[in-house]
């Protein structure tokens, strides 16, 4: 499902990842461990598509697609995204609005119709009960 081959990553000419290989099959759960500064977050950020980092070598395939050339939003729409350790709080963006925009973007990507504000609220209430 996810395959990382010989991944090298630089930030401002400083090499941080020096050849990572990793294969994740569907249904598997992996935990990556290591001391501070060993590049765990860098790996996660690169996979999510943070433009601060430069990939100098290697390839990453997700469901058979090369994702390194994709924009972060397209990776997310393909189903790969990063859960932030410290989620960014954006003053003025309400959670409902944010979630709905996000869902609609992904629906659009999949060729589905956008969901209306009232339907989305209904959906949210259902999910809340289920949880």
């Amino acid at each position: 499902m996810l395959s990382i081959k010989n991944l090298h990553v630089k930030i401002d000419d400083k090499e941080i990842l020096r050849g990572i290989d990793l294969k994740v099959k569907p249904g598997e759960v992996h935990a990556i461990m290591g001391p501070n500064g060993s590049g765990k977050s860098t790996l996660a950020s690169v996979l999510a598509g943070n433009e601060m980092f430069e990939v100098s070598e290697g390839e990453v395939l997700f469901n058979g697609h090369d994702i390194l050339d994709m924009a972060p939003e397209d990776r997310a729409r393909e189903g790969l995204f990063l859960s932030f350790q410290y989620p960014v709080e954006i003053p003025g963006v309400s959670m409902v609005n944010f979630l709905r925009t996000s869902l609609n973007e992904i629906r659009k990507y999949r060729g589905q119709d956008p969901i209306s504000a009232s339907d989305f609220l209904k959906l949210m209430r259902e999910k809340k009960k289920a949880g």
Partner: protein
Amino acid sequence: MDNVIKNIIGRDVTLDGLFEENRSLIEGNSSSVMNALRSDAFEAFRRLGIPSNKVEDYKYTNLQPLFSGDYSLSLTPDTLVENVEDIFSCDVDTLDSITIFIVNGWYYARNKPDGLPDGVRIGSLAQLAKEDPSFLEKYYGKNAPYLSDGIVAMNTMFASDGFYIHIPRGVTVEKPIQIVNILMSEEPLMTNQRNLIVLEENSEARVMVCDHTLTSDKFVINNVTEGFVDRNARLDFYNLQNQHNATTQVAGFYIEQKEDSHVKTNNLTLHTGVGRNNITLKLAGTHAEGHTYGLYLLDKNQHVDNFSFIDHAVPDCFSDELFKGVLDDHATGAFTGKIMVRPDAQKTNAYQSNNNLLLTKDAKINTKPQLEIYADDVKCSHGATVGQLDEEAMFYLRTRGINREEATILLMYAFAYEVIEKIQVEPLREQIRTLVEKRFRGELDKCHSCVVCGQKGTGVSCM
């Protein structure tokens, strides 16, 4: 100081020459109360002229070149054949309001403001000057600095009409009063509109002024609005500006507040060419509260300059200011927040904040807090920020599948929201919220001359 040479449709004439030439026509159409100030205003104008950037208060907006060029002058009321209601559809049309129209600076003759509570008067200033001169005399020219500001002097020289609102003692007008300023002309046009808002003791009103251009000609607008808010009265004032790029508008709001009064102004510039707002609140009675807010959303080569002056003349008053701007392309902006705390004005609380978001390297903002504090027991704060979109927030949104354009809109909107949420009238806030979102999505493009204008450097038509 030399006054600008102005071409009034094909011939060179100075503005003061123009005034002298048309004085009898202007005065003939007007009444004694308004005519009484014209000589002094004329003298002041000859001394001051149109403010250039050498005048400190106009440092970032040189009005002189903008007030020269080929224009006709709106000296007589328009005789419109069509109904304004038929040719104009309002962007906030679902708002349940008392609506009146002003066409090219003149009170539209077929206005019928109905549903007014007893004693409330809304109408034409020229008419008021004829019918109730003693009322107008008490207020006319009392707040607007027509002897020290050239642009106000010019307005006072030429002004013939505009709207007035009079809310008597103890009356609350629940519905918002909406004034729609419409500009439409077959040729470039200059207007001088004069307005008056009077709220007597314990009264309350919400006034919304919408500025629109309906034809693509160049417009130069010089508006002056004087406001008098008496004891314990409450005025919410909104100005929504949505004009095309060939518009120059100078709008002055000069409001005086008495004891325990509450005034809130909100200047929302959605689209214009060059805009200059002079917002003056004089806190002249103890425990008066003044709030001034503003939002300007600029792109291409628009320019907006908000100049606010909060005058704490007596003790125990409160003022709060928040102006926010989003500037794209080559847009430029300016903000001045002048706060005067006079020697006796102890226990003053005054807050001010100006935040700007620059989306490109070419956008520019000049922001200037200007606090003059002559009392020693006061609490004043000011802050100004200029920044770019937060890359981390942008990345976060993108990792949730929201593309860059959509994320930009979401972030700009989030930035602007702080000003919008200050609007207390719920339906109005919703309307403006939608308008701002439309504006960010580019669905509210007022720039009829865009085809010729394009970007910077392609002509003066779109200044």
